[in-house]
């Protein structure tokens, strides 16, 4: 079969209005592909003055697409996002866990609903501005870390499978962020100096506590040590993440205080002193909703490295397969603040093997019921 020319290959680029996806679109256009820019609107934050982040971002998408010379459109996934991502996000918080909506958004929206939309527009590929790389070395797609170690986003993409990867392009995955900015500047793209977005997309720069409080009733309760000494009040368990020091407001002498656990039933936030408080450490977990990039069967037990939160260093672990898409993960060394609800993502060198959701956390064979 004759190899198709890039001009006959239609690529839809998911454009957010940021510099990464702008450069992704530019590079594909320069490579000669039939490129279409599409802005995805998942959330409406229109305020009283009519200001809406999405409107501002779409405006940037329009300017960049006109500079590059590609058609642009917008598509609305507010309903799907609400049903599949935001509802999950709230449910997890209600259950005392710390969800990762970005993983869910990639799984359910960007690389599912949006990918379907792209295919409906006759696209051969969907491209995004993620820092990750796809290779097809020997009959299977592999997902590799982005070249820029500091920016690697495979953690959020861990649920992607062969079917999805076969239709995905990450045009900036082989670049350093600084180079991406340079390319944008050289091409004089409207987004060249635009600040990177931070935080969860639907919350943006707003106060997280205020935002969450609009959707979930906060129930104030006591802060206690594991020995039952009351150290003060908390405004709501959902505002605290295990291992964080922020917002406890406990003074006094000695080492700083950290959130080390929760008792959902009694509405207690456990606190303890010291960054390295031993209660913060665990040595194994059970993860569910595990998805592997490869279709090849995994051995019942294998060693690899794992990340338990975004940008964490790689930890050596042993993975044991269980039924129902669950795995047991045993750490070589105890790890601090492994939090249910977050993703655990497995790597073999630069290759992302897949991942799942941290469900149960153990120390010395005992389940830590207080983490969450």
């Amino acid at each position: 079969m004759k190899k198709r020319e890039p001009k006959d290959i239609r690529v839809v680029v998911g454009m957010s209005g940021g510099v990464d996806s702008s450069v992704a679109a530019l590079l594909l256009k320069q490579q000669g592909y039939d490129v279409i820019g599409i802005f995805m609107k998942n959330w409406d934050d229109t305020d009283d003055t009519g200001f809406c982040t999405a409107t501002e971002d779409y405006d940037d998408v329009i300017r960049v697409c006109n500079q590059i010379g590609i058609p642009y459109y917008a598509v609305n996934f507010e309903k799907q996002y609400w049903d599949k991502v935001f509802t999950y996000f709230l449910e997890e918080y209600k259950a005392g866990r710390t969800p990762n909506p970005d993983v869910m958004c990639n799984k359910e929206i960007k690389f599912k609903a949006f990918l379907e939309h792209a295919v409906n527009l006759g696209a051969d590929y969907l491209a995004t501005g993620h820092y990750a790389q796809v290779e097809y070395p020997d009959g299977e797609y592999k997902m590799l870390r982005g070249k820029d170690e500091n920016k690697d986003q495979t953690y959020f993409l861990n649920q992607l499978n062969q079917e999805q990867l076969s239709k995905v392009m990450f045009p900036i995955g082989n670049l350093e962020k600084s180079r991406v900015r340079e390319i944008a500047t050289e091409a004089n793209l409207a987004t060249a100096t635009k600040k990177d977005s931070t935080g969860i997309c639907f919350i943006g720069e707003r106060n997280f506590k205020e935002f969450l409080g609009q959707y979930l009733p906060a129930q104030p309760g006591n802060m206690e040590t594991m020995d039952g000494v009351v150290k003060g009040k908390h405004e709501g368990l959902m505002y605290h993440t295990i291992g964080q020091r922020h917002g406890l407001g406990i003074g006094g002498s000695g080492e700083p205080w950290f959130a080390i656990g929760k008792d959902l039933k009694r509405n207690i936030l456990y606190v303890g002193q010291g960054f390295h408080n031993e209660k913060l450490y665990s040595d194994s977990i059970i993860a569910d909703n595990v998805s592997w990039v490869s279709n090849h069967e995994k051995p019942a037990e294998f060693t690899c490295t794992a990340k338990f939160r975004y940008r964490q260093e790689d930890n050596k672990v042993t993975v044991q397969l269980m039924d129902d898409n669950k795995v047991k993960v045993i750490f070589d060394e105890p790890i601090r603040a492994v939090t249910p609800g977050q993703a655990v993502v497995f790597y073999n060198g630069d290759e992302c093997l897949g991942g799942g959701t941290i469900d149960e956390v153990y120390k010395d064979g005992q389940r830590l019921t207080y983490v969450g």
Partner: protein
Amino acid sequence: MIEGGTMERIYLDHAATTPMHPRVIEKMMEVMNNNFGNPSSIHSFGREARHYIDLARETLARSIGAKENEIIFTSGGTEADNMALFGAAESNQNKGKHIITTQVEHHAVLHACQRLEKMGFEVTYLPVDETGVISLNELSGALREDTILVSIMYGNNEVGTLQPIKEIGEILQSHQALFHTDAVQAYGIEDIDVDNANIDLLSVSAHKINGPKGTGFLYVRDKVKLIPRVYGGEQERKRRAGTENVAAIVGFQEAVIVAAEERLVKREKYQGFKKTFIEHLSAHNIDFSLNGLLENSMPHILNLSFPGTNVEAMLVNLDLAGIAVSSGSACTAGSIEPSHVLVAMFGEQSDQLINSIRFSFGFNTTEDQIIKTAEETARIVSRLKK
């Protein structure tokens, strides 16, 4: 850099805006080349400019059976609507604070009404039936002693449905309320006579009838007083200040002349297009339904619903195939506001809201383009429904 491409494109979005007629461009070039005067100036340059405007005003007035002094030039349909609504409301508030309009008006009327509500006026939004028409009985029932303005569009920009303007005019004949009609989409294609329909205020835009953008007019019946919205010089007899856009106004005039010459031929041609379009879709066994009616509808607007499809994917696919159409509803930054017109016709939960497409025809539309569009539409619908 603008996206290139050699693909032959088909423009079927004439209800959004139209290309300028070559005769319009020619006239405007002539004016721009020969005269730049300010019509308010007393010297020869100004007088020449003023003469252009006077002649244009005469043509426009005659086109709706009005007198020259009843035509106020505006920046377009939106300004004309705003001037009519705010002007009539403010000028007549001593007689009452009640206004009647419909649920299917253009946003230039609807959003102005919402603002008037905030200013203390009371607005009744008449519902429509499944074909998009109001009920005269409901209008009569809604009229109150303190009703000062009734604003009902001539023909709907999304589905093409015509309102019973003459009958509305008759009902209002014996009532104090002023009768405004937004004729932006109907002007040039329908036969409009302000006396015959007892119309007091009527809005028109040039760019919908192959004239330039940025100009339009409001017809204001003699003796009807409107408090101005724009203050400044004494243009338009102090009713709308601001130096006139002479070249555009002359282009507008030429567009009106062309429209009058070609109106009947166009009507017949467009009705044929609708038939052809529907026949071709039917030949491909495409599941579709008409939003509105074939009769009692403006011939240049065809709004179709394609069950099982999604308007976002439809519009983009058609555009990528070089065919420009629209959903009739505003969709910016991915916010598909469901069309308020379709909501009024079918209810908030109806499928038509997410699967309807508006095809609208213009002077350079050909039978061949209609067939190509119908074929491409059929192809896309079949593909999306798989």
